[in-house]
């Protein structure tokens, strides 16, 4: 009882951040072990076909592949900590530059997809929970299996072909109409930059370009989100406190807003944290179809060009993004939920 509330919160966040750093370390070690145990010489692959023995040795030196195993692990972690991810064998520039250009593009896609998923899944779940009965279960089951079973990459291609190429409703590829907009680069994401400077026509253009990829990407998230939220809405609506509030004369809207939705937010937040990783995985597939130059397209190109430093760097950066998002979800969740708050920090 001696420490103040802000101090307790700071202590809690500090513990969480320390845990996250540990997790990133585990991830880095896992990637390092993977590189060591996979057959095939990375230096030979990075040096490219027809490289001389000297060039291969030079690559080995550059990639930190010379020396004993513990030495290599230390130099690997060391260069990560200093933000040095090596040189791309395809572009001959630092990997960090390649990644820095790609991160905002993918983030834009993932963020729009999450927003879209929530906007679709929450009302859908609420509506179907209000009219919950045994009927329609078969249809629901079919639709969920359908949404989960469609190959993302194929669906992306088919929508691009039908809605983009054939009907011309959406732009086929890219992030914006080339030459049509002159938005300054602030974040690197055309959509967010256009919003920041208030250029509405550029924003509309970016939104039109992101519509199809974001729809495809969000489908994989809407299925499970709908399923879990529907159950949550049904349970929440039958809680005692909701019955009491209803008896006290609260209207339907007020019940939803003040009592039911806050309850449903918890699983929704956890779900966003868990699914964030797979959204990045899905983004790899969607971006390569729609020619969006984000992390996914970067990784796909790097695999094709055997540019292993870029693949390793990209995987690590995606890992760090996922872990950090999970940290944020955890902290927001704890600050928001009074029960968790008292359990974790006693305030």
């Amino acid at each position, binding site marked *: 009882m001696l420490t103040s509330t802000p101090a307790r919160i700071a202590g809690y966040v500090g513990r969480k951040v320390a845990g996250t750093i540990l997790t990133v370390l585990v991830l880095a070690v896992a990637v390092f072990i993977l590189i060591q145990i996979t057959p095939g010489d990375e230096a030979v692959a990075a040096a490219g076909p027809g490289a001389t023995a000297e060039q291969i040795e030079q690559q080995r030196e550059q990639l930190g592949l010379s020396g004993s195993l513990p030495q290599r692990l230390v130099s690997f972690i060391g260069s990560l900590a200093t933000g040095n991810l090596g040189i791309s064998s395809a572009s001959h520039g630092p990997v960090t530059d390649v990644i820095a250009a790609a991160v905002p593009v993918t983030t834009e896609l993932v963020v729009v997809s999450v927003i879209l998923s929530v906007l679709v899944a929450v009302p859908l779940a609420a509506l179907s929970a209000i009219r919950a009965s045994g009927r329609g279960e078969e249809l629901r089951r079919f639709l969920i299996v359908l949404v*989960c079973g469609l190959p993302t990459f194929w669906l992306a291609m088919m929508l691009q072909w039908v809605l983009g190429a054939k009907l011309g409703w959406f732009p086929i590829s890219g992030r914006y109409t080339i030459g049509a907009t002159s938005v300054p680069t602030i974040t690197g994401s055309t959509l967010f930059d256009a919003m920041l400077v208030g250029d509405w026509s550029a924003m509309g253009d970016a939104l039109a370009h992101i519509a199809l990829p974001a729809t495809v990407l969000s489908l994989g998230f809407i299925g499970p989100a709908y399923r879990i939220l529907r159950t949550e809405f049904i349970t929440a609506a039958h809680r005692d406190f909701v019955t009491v509030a209803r008896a006290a004369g609260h209207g339907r809207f007020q019940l939803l807003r003040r009592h039911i939705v806050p309850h449903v937010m918890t699983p929704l937040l956890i779900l966003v944290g868990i699914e964030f990783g797979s959204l990045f995985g899905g983004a790899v597939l969607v971006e390569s179809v729609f020619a969006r130059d984000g992390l996914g397209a970067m990784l796909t190109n790097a695999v094709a060009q055997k540019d292993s430093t870029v693949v390793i760097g990209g995987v690590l950066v995606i890992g760090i993004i996922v872990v950090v998002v999970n940290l944020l979800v955890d902290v927001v969740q704890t600050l928001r939920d009074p029960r968790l708050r008292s359990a974790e920090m006693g305030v």
Partner: protein
Amino acid sequence: MTATATPQRRAPRAAGAAFAAARRGWRTRHRTAGSVLDVVGFAIVGVVVLTALVGPLIAPDVYASHIQNARLAPSAAHLMGTDDQGRDVFWRIVVGSRTTLSAAVITVILYSVIGVLIATVAVLAPRWIGDMVMRVVDVMQAFPSLIFALLIAALMGPSLQSSIVALAATGWVVTARLLAGIMRETLTEPYVEAARTLGVSTWALLLRHVFPNALPTLWVKWAGDLGITILLIGSMSFIGAGAQPPSAEWGAMVIAAKGYVTSAWWGALFPGLAIACTSMGFALVGDAIHHRLSHRVKGH
């Protein structure tokens, strides 16, 4: 069953398992027994398995190109048309069914073995080792497996074998977590305690009491996993980390047809439909098995 549809608050781990289950589309409530969808699921899986067994034996050569027949629209002679090399798309899908299905089966077998081993270590080893293993499992679960698999396949050089190894190396996580939970639960059951008191060794306990107890859950998981693995094998081929041309692996067929989808849509549409149907078939079968098993338990 460990998988519950209601996420428990303050138990993100349990919630994680439930979300994973929901994502794979297993759990449904208020189901009527023997629904149409169960039949559809078993029918799809039956047809695909039969095609994979018999198809390649009766199919014509699907690798030789006949440029004069390139991009023919579907007709009686070519049910699903021909691709840019003049190869019959229907027969390529038939032959590819064996490639895709066997790759998925091998992947699931491999990672199930890894999952069993890791779960056993997590449960039987000293506490601190078990905790460390579960920490790694946590990290792995948050991480997109497709991206990890991409890394492994890139390091090994892209091929179907690489994508099998890569998916096996990343796919064990949920199996291990599920199994570790069931094992911990079962080891404290009175009948297991009784057997232990009678002097049955730990390994015999595991083989005779614990694993058989986990089997029903695993059947459901395996069926659902096959569906997901078929999607992943296709995805790996699609991003160029898996099967390479001229393979008739379904995902490889879709990417090969990407360049000419506007002029000959059939080259991409049908292999993708094959992936979608097969994956849904396995999901429905998993669902059906789950339903039957939970029904039988209730009946007792």
